[in-house]
């Protein structure tokens, strides 16, 4: 039994078999297998060779002989290697003798060979070490891709264990089978954490080296409350955790009971509680938990799931599916917010040095009008099915906003020409998530119907901190006085211009911060669905007067630490059992 400590990022307890996802970008850990698994692993290795050969043959034949002559030669060499029986035998022998996984065997043997090559005096041959690494990656990809595909066809309950999880990998997660997430890397706002929270499954991240301790078939307990993961727990521990799990589920049920009740403070002020979703299938969960609509529909999933660009119809069907679930309740669709990830980076011939500040999100869309217009058309077409609003992300100045609006108008004209119906008065809003937008909110407010404050990115840009970078993530805080000042500014400007305002960043789903936001004037929030009952509970337990006091006190403080401590105490008084 091995107990590992990490950061708790999504509450709950789950006990299940592990499903390990390795990445060819990182060292493959040595993972032992049972003697009975020898045959399976050897066969996996042999299949990887076979599939890598097939892949290479396809790639080789696709090369133009004149231009690709050199490449064809390289492929020819690689093919010989993959066909080499003694190489394959080395790998399968290693699996048999050392009882390790196919990935580890491939990686170890190939690296051994590569280092032999590298030592040879002849430069031509020593350079071939690079070819060996290339072949290693190709084989590993075959092995790992199959595992990744299996994620979409799960039949048993599992806890997913990985070094870290990318949006593409989590795209197919079905909460019926994926019961928990544990990762070596990551922090409170890493992708794994966000996905876990929106699926309502326990997750622990920043475990550092969990993937080295885990073996194929190990049972794992994920304690998302205390931030602990236990590998191969003993009987006693399992029983203990089954107890905890039951207690926690009971608490959940008690909170769910307030689903039907309105989100109204004790002194009668109503708060509109909406849900954030990343995938259409989460829409139902929002309703289940008592959300009054969707405040943030992230549309990036359409680009991360497939290898080819989604068509307008793909967009339309995804949005329609969600809008129909909500009928008369609002659904705010955010246009593409991709950037600094596989999709936008792979289309460039040199990766951006600073993708976070680069061609992402709305900027990417404004420079890729065909792609942008497809999405806009789909959103407009869907607007007749319900109460749809459109939101542009990462707007930094008025010019960008006017450009986006102009393109939307162009698309409207096209639809008019084609006699396709849409809501001409579709509300248009922006995410206020950059310091420039926050500081000029008064001006932006004149040209939009609503603001939504994206506290995650606003905090990152304001404090100049990458929330995903473990070495500085402790500097990230949404209640830093600077950030609060900007948020207050936006709220006041929205109020003056009499436009709607909501907060959709994770700050709104933190029990400790919700009173502060309310006291600052926020009346609409959009959060990850599992948190809806708990936040509603807090809203129903406070008075707006109390919240106003909290806000007043906090806005007079100038130390983040002081503010955090004060808010934690204030929240504990209201909902002691959540702490």
């Amino acid at each position: 039994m091995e107990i590992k400590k990490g950061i708790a990022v999504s509450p709950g307890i789950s006990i299940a078999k592990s499903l390990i996802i390795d990445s060819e970008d990182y060292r493959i850990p040595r993972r032992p297998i049972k003697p009975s698994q020898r045959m399976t692993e050897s066969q996996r290795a042999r299949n990887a060779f076979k599939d890598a050969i097939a892949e290479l043959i396809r790639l080789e034949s696709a090369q133009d002989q004149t231009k690709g002559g050199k490449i064809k030669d390289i492929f020819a060499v690689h093919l010989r290697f993959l066909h080499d029986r003694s190489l394959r035998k080395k790998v399968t022998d290693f699996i048999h003798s050392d009882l390790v996984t196919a990935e580890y065997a491939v990686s170890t043997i190939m690296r051994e060979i590569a280092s032999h090559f590298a030592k040879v005096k002849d430069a031509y041959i020593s350079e071939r070490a690079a070819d060996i690494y290339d072949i290693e990656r190709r084989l590993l990809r075959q092995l790992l891709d199959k595992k990744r595909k299996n994620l979409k066809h799960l039949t048993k309950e599992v806890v997913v264990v990985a070094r870290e999880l990318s949006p593409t990998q989590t795209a197919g997660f079905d909460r019926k089978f994926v019961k928990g997430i544990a990762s070596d890397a990551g922090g409170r706002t890493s992708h794994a954490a966000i996905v876990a929270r929106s699926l309502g499954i326990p997750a622990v991240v920043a475990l550092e080296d969990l993937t080295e301790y885990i073996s194929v078939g190990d049972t794992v307990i994920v304690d998302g409350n205390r931030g602990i993961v236990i590998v191969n727990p003993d009987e006693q521990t399992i029983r203990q955790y089954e107890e905890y799990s039951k207690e926690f589920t009971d608490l959940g049920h008690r909170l769910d009971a307030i689903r039907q009740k309105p989100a109204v403070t004790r002194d009668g002020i109503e708060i509109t509680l909406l849900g954030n979703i990343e995938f259409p299938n989460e829409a139902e969960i929002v309703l289940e938990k008592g959300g009054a609509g969707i405040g943030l529909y992230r549309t990036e999933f359409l680009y991360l799931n497939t290898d080819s660009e989604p068509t307008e119809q793909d967009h339309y069907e995804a949005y329609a599916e969600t809008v129909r679930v909500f009928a008369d309740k609002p659904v705010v669709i955010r246009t593409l917010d991709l950037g600094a990830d596989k999709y936008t980076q792979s289309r460039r011939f040199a990766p951006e040095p600073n993708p976070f500040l680069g061609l992402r999100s709305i900027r990417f869309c404004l420079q890729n009008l065909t792609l942008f217009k497809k999405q806009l058309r789909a959103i407009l077409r869907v607007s007749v099915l319900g109460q749809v609003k459109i939101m542009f992300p990462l707007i930094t100045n008025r010019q960008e906003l006017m450009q986006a609006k102009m393109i939307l108008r162009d698309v409207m004209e096209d639809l008019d020409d084609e006699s396709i119906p849409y809501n001409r008065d579709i509300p248009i809003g922006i995410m206020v998530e950059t310091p420039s937008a926050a500081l000029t909110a008064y001006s932006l407010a004149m040209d939009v119907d609503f603001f939504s404050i994206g506290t995650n990115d606003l905090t990152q840009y304001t404090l100049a901190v990458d929330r995903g970078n473990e070495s500085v993530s402790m500097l990230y805080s949404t209640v830093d006085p600077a950030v609060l000042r900007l948020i207050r500014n936006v709220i006041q400007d929205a109020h003056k211009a009499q436009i709607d305002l909501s907060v959709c960043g994770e700050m709104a789903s933190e029990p400790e911060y919700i009173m502060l936001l309310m006291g600052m004037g926020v009346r609409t929030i959009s959060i990850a669905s599992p948190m809806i009952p708990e936040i509603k509970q807090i809203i129903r337990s406070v008075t707006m007067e109390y919240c106003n006091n909290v806000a007043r006190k906090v806005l007079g403080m100038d130390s983040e630490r002081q503010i955090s401590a004060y808010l934690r105490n204030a929240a504990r008084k209201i909902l002691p059992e959540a702490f």
Partner: protein
Amino acid sequence: MQADEDTLENVVYEAELEIKNAEGLHMRPAMQFVDIANRFDSEINVSNGDTDVDGKSIMNISMLAATCGTKLKIRAKGPDAQEAIKALRELVEEKHFNEPTPKR
């Protein structure tokens, strides 16, 4: 060329071949060697004095890193051993892997 007879099936033929092309037994020649060796049913072994390797394995042959002038002992065992040796000699010493020999 020498021939030993174990049995009728396991005829063994040996030869010593000198690498004549300027760049020696690098990737492309190694590939050609291995391709030809694999055409035959016989077992083919290659030795450079220090190590003895399977002549049908690209991995093994390229590890030999035989430079120009190196003499390799080729040993073929099987029903078509003689043809194998003949083909390999042609490739190494007569065609020199279709590559240039060193200029004097």
